[in-house]
């Protein structure tokens, strides 16, 4: 596949991600920060986010598995995830976190479990979409095209 085709694919795919709410303006901010000195900046931040998110999702599962749920802990974790997802522009994840915190305030375990399910689902989707995005970028680089969109 030639570079021009790949680039068109990348643009179309990125636009789709913004349209479907997977990404918001903050992601663009990160892309603007990427330069020759830090050509992998976005990928690095996103990787940190994935590791952090996975850690938090595991903690949440543990928290909610307890006989007596510590809602303060749950809230603290969700707040963390909300923050980091907002920092990379992961809008859909951020939105689930907002709902999660409301449900957590109501001390509704059932609701929290549902939110956790939703979070896991959105996270998996996001991860796969971003991996596709980075793959496309790598292909463009390999085909000799300039690094950024």
């Amino acid at each position, binding site marked *: 596949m030639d570079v021009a085709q790949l680039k068109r694919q990348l643009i179309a795919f990125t636009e789709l991600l913004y349209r479907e709410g997977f990404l918001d303006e*903050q992601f663009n*901010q*990160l892309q*603007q*920060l990427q*330069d*020759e*000195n*830090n050509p992998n*900046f976005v990928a*690095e*931040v996103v990787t*940190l*986010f994935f590791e*952090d998110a996975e850690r938090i999702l595991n903690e949440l599962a543990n928290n909610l598995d307890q006989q007596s749920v510590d809602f303060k802990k749950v809230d*603290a974790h969700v*707040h*963390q995830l*909300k*923050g*980091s997802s*907002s*920092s*990379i*522009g992961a809008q859909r994840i951020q939105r689930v976190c*907002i709902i999660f*915190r409301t449900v957590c305030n109501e001390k509704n375990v059932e609701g929290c479990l549902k939110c956790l399910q939703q979070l896991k689902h959105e996270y998996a989707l996001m991860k796969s979409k971003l991996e596709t995005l980075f793959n496309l970028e790598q292909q463009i680089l390999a085909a000799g095209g300039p690094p950024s969109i």
Partner: protein
Amino acid sequence: MAVAGAVLRQNLPGNMDLCGKTGKGVPEFHVLAVDDSIVDRKVIEKLLRSLSCKVTVVDSGSRALQFLGLDGENSSVGFDALKVNLIMTDYSMPGMTGYELLKKIKGSSAFREIPVVIMSSERILARINRCLEEGAEEFLSKPVKFSDVERLTRYLLRGEADEVSEFGKRKLPKNCDLEVSSPSSPSSDDSSSSLCSYSRSSSPLPKRCKSV
């Protein structure tokens, strides 16, 4: 002078450079950033580096105090710590909050003059007021954008931090979606719905740039 400035700018990879304008011999603008989130630390560090600031990033208020030599230990203050020009701290951190860190800094004779900026994803009016009253330079909404940091460092470099005449004046921003995280209180909902960043100083940069 203009030619020298142009040459400097050309050498840099297209990023804004606040410190390079005046050429060699000018000390770098050193920012101490404090945030418990690893993602946010990475982002704020890059934001500041892209503005050619020297950056020290720590993950907690206590580490920040350690760095500044304010942790009560009799360790000598590191050379680095003496040259901190700005402290940017997250509000919500486990252990010591950004507000508590702010109080400790403002309570120290050695460091109280250093501007402190608070960052938070939660726009709670009472919280914002408290921080500004305690001496915070500005309260930035997260996620922090390049334009926020650029405006901030530019204004501090020009020494306009002295203009406190507009203390308490709110800067009305554009559309911010509000997440109501405080107990329902109609008045705070109303006023906080249009707030993105708060500062002790007044209007957006372009106007202020004209003066002096």
